[in-house]
């Protein structure tokens, strides 16, 4: 890398560094929001899929089948256009003419959360199935109410068993945020495209973007592995 390209990606007067950093921040924010919302959806999804009620189980299966079966990019498009259409329609009904659209950050986060929620549903469900019935019965036998049982026994153990799968899902959520570039969000990929266009140095900027994705992914993976290791002490050997 020569000094000229270094200046281009740096933080100097004609460097893109600051904008890229901001965009990376947006990528991280979108990923964190999508994953967190996905965890909520995954918890609900797993509860549905494990419910004794047939109809509830069916809803859970419908959800995971749908969002694991459609390409993510299509989900994003459907939400982007569908969301604006619905909003515009609602606004017309309320007496506001014109075209309305939801912020692409919100649309994108919801779309990716729905997909990651479908995968997290599976992660939580299979983790729950690994719990030992005896340990749950031991909780009941000492008089735990169902909420105490959930909070003290079921949730911590399920989380522990789901952790490796959740780590993988986090990694893919981080990468999937790149899809938000197609609905106009200036996240890391979109910002790199803008910079490559302006400087005619696509390889440089896409290379930098790749590196930043890798760094973000690997640092978080390291964190997750550390937590896993701490936990595995009790299941150990």
């Amino acid at each position, binding site marked *: 890398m020569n000094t000229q390209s270094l200046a281009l990606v740096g933080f100097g007067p004609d460097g893109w560094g600051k904008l890229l950093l901001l965009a990376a921040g947006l990528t991280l924010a979108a990923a964190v929001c999508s994953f967190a919302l996905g965890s909520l959806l995954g918890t609900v999804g797993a509860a549905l899929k494990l419910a004794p009620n047939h109809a509830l189980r069916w809803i859970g299966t419908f959800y995971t089948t749908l969002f694991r079966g459609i390409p993510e990019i299509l989900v994003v498009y459907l939400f982007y256009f569908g969301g604006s259409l619905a909003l515009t329609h609602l606004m017309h009904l309320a007496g506001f003419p014109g075209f309305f659209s939801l912020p692409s950050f919100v649309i994108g986060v919801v779309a990716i959360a729905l997909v990651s929620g479908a995968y997290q549903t599976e992660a939580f469900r299979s983790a729950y199935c690994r719990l*030992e019935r005896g340990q749950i019965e031991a*909780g*009941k036998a000492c008089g*735990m109410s169902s909420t105490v049982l959930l909070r003290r026994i079921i949730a911590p*153990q399920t989380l522990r068993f789901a952790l490796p799968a959740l780590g993988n899902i986090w990694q893919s959520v981080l990468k999937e945020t790149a899809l938000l570039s197609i609905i106009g969000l200036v996240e890391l990929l979109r910002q790199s495209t803008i910079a490559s266009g302006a400087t005619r140095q696509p390889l440089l900027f896409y290379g930098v973007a790749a590196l930043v994705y890798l760094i973000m992914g690997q640092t978080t993976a390291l964190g997750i592995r550390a937590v896993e290791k701490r936990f595995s002490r*009790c299941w150990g050997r």
Partner: protein
Amino acid sequence: MEPFPQETAPLPGATVIKAVGLTKRYGVLDVLQGIDLEAHEGEVISILGASGSGKSTFLRCLNLLEVPSGGALNILGEDIRFRLKRGEQHIADARQVNRLRSQVGMVFQNFCLWSHRTVLQNVMEGPIHVQGRNRYEVRDEAEKTLARVGMLNRAEYYPSQLSGGQQQRVAIARAIVMRPRVLLFDEPTSALDPELVGEVLKVMRDLASEGRTMLIVTHEMAFARDVSSRIVFLEKGTVRAQGSPQDLFKGGMDESFDRFISHFSRPG
């Protein structure tokens, strides 16, 4: 969380468990076919019987881990309330059941310690999160209880780091730290290597000699004979015979029981 009322000292010999005509059915299988049993304060009752005779099912009915299909159940003076739904009995009052369970300790064949908690945390869990007792008092009592079963030096270990006998002793500590009025044991030594059985039986002997009320499902005939005040022999989901260990073990009281114990190497 309101703490449960503790230690309302019962009259000596008061009835703590009373089952009348207790039945349990799984589909078409009648596992319990009307069991009557009354256990009094201070009794040590061993429940014997062939595998599949319904011993575990009966014991699990007593703290409602299984819901009986019929009959009446009175635990610590309270009639358990059931409700019928599509022809099956269900627990009517979960709070009642939880309250009673906190006063009825249970020790399982497979220990069933919580694998994400240390030994000490396992023992402190119930008093703090079920009974709402003070953490510092509980810690003190938990340590004393662990010392009693000889496990205080393993307080910071996780269950997976212990032998079966050690795990079972912790499980017993976990049960008695709740200050239960009755203790239920479901084959507490059956999952143990032979050389580890003794350490668990010793703890149980100590508990019995303290005058604790215990119902024990076991295949340890010598233990049952020496420690029990009463033997209850189940066969095909009914009480086939019961009486003092002296009467039953000398033979000739019930031919089915005699045949049953002849399968075990001479007790004692």
